[in-house]
């Protein structure tokens, strides 16, 4: 009896939490189709005119482009350097590998605000003030931990005798890495890339300290829109971003499995 009650409580909690997470997203999506500038429930009809306005938002295109550039570039650099670092940690007989691993992943545990201030002060101290470049380096600090964490876990599961097996079967050493290690680590690579990209693309607290008039990332720009003119255009933009993310996750779920991305199973 007690056990059944406990199970019911757990289920109610789980469903409640899921709703709590999903409802705001549904509200945003609904608001983006609002026919009136002020979002009201119940909806009276639907309109897609706010979607047409996104492109006409002040400074939207440069910000989108900048955010995409920064996210893609920092993800690419992180994937390469993070994977190499992960190999050194997981494979090399590096003294203090555990400390390196913790250091690499530590920005994940730090409040973004603290990280932002620290980076700003640090860059100033060494005289590094190039607007776009500081932003990129800061985003590397954000994305690298995601890559390092995922790749260290992926490599820890990788059995290096697979490479030896491939070699005895007739593969050269580089050939073995390509035919065996790359496919085995591809899911980790994809997961690392997606999380890294998303972490960079929607980062606000770090970017805000390093942006200037010319280098406003999309999240910064969006907050600015909210303050200036809170109409459903922003809801439309959010819905688009949400849709893009869902498509990205859906496709990677087809490829590698979402449970693996969430880290709830391997």
């Amino acid at each position, binding site marked *: 009896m007690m056990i059944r009650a406990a199970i019911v409580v757990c289920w109610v909690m789980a469903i409640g939490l899921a709703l709590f997470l999903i409802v705001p997203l549904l509200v945003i999506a609904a608001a983006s189709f609002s026919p009136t500038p002020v979002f009201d429930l119940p909806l009276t009809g639907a309109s897609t005119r706010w979607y047409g306005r996104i492109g006409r938002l002040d400074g939207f295109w440069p910000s989108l482009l900048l955010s995409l550039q920064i996210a893609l570039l920092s993800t690419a650099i992180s994937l390469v350097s993070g994977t190499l670092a992960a190999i050194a940690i997981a494979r090399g007989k590096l003294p203090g590998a555990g400390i390196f691993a913790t250091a690499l992943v530590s920005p994940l545990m730090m409040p973004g605000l603290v990280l932002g201030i620290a980076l700003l002060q640090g860059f100033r101290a060494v005289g590094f003030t190039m607007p776009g470049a500081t932003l990129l380096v800061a985003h590397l600090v954000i994305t690298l931990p995601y890559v390092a964490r995922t790749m260290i876990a992926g490599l820890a599961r990788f059995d290096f*005798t*697979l490479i030896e*097996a491939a*070699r*005895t079967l*007739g593969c050269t*050493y580089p*050939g073995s890495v390509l035919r065996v290690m790359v*496919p085995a680590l591809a899911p980790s690579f994809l997961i690392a890339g997606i999380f890294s990209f998303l972490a960079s693309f929607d980062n606000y607290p770090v970017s805000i300290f390093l942006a200037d008039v010319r280098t406003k990332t999309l999240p910064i720009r969006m907050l600015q829109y909210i303050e200036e003119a809170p109409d459903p255009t922003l809801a439309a933009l959010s819905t688009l971003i949400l849709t893009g993310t869902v498509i990205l996750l859906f496709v990677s779920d087809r490829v590698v499995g979402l449970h693996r991305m969430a880290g709830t199973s391997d």
Partner: protein
Amino acid sequence: MSGAAPHLVVRSISKRYGPTTVLDHIDLTIRRGELVTLLGPSGCGKTTLLRAIAGLAQPDSGKVELAGRDITHVPPHKRNVGVVFQSYALFPHLTVAGNVAFGLKVRGTARREINAAVERALSLVKLGHLAGRRISALSGGQQQRVALARAIAVEPDVLLFDEALSALDRKLREEMQVELRRLLQDVKATAIFVTHDQDEALTMSDRVAVMNKGRIEQLAEPRELYLRPASLFALNFVGLSTRISGTVLAADNGKVDVETKVGRLSALGNFQAGSPVIVAARPEQLRLGEQSEANSAAGRVRSVVFQGSRTLVEVDAGAGESLLAELSERDGAIPRVHDEIRLSWPVTETFAFPMEAQA
């Protein structure tokens, strides 16, 4: 090709890792179609020797020849050596058939030939029906077979097995030992097994190399290895024995008389008078009662262990020495614990080994 021709020749291979000598001038010659086991305790260098043959570890000195070719400096992918790893090392992103086809694909074999070879290899290991399975959906025994099929499919000059059966449970392992031996004989494979399991070595091989501390102590057929161990280490590692320490009193032409704490014993061996030795005999040589022209010793039964067709009887012979006899019901009543008994065994089945070589 002649069955007696040397097929794999390892010439005086040595390998050090830092200060430790892992392989110490290993010599090993294997004939075509022969199944040889490297038997020895963990850490004695078996895997390293196998890796040196496969080209995965470069020896510091010495040579390896395979099928008449010096392969000492040939990289692993050009050696045509098949390896079955302890962890199987199957490719998780490929199916069963994909794993078996891997070596042939890499070699650029024509597709039709690959399909035929994969089918043949999988039917040899009785896994034809699982060709499309993912590796993760296989049991341990099935994975073991896929690893074998993958290695066989490329028709290697020699197959190397590194503790390939040790991950299987006992019953499956014993079945696989017999099946694997028959399969390898059918395809006329030359193979080296590595194991620390003496039963596996005796079951599977034409010859067994007993390894100890980077050296081969004895290379012999299983029967000879058991009946005529060349060293105390080989004696101890394969099978059970009675061992009694003593001092040589007199030596005569391959035979010695030894003074021990349980009395005077005769044994085969070449020693000078005064040498400290260990006198040893296999338990099935010991019989109840006296025999003429035989060694004998008396004592009190310490334990009796029933093992089905045979019974192991351990006797406390006093002065810290003990006797181990394997008795059969057929030869008379089995003594009980605390019985005072006398055991005897033939001199020709008694061996003396130098004392200092005790491992």
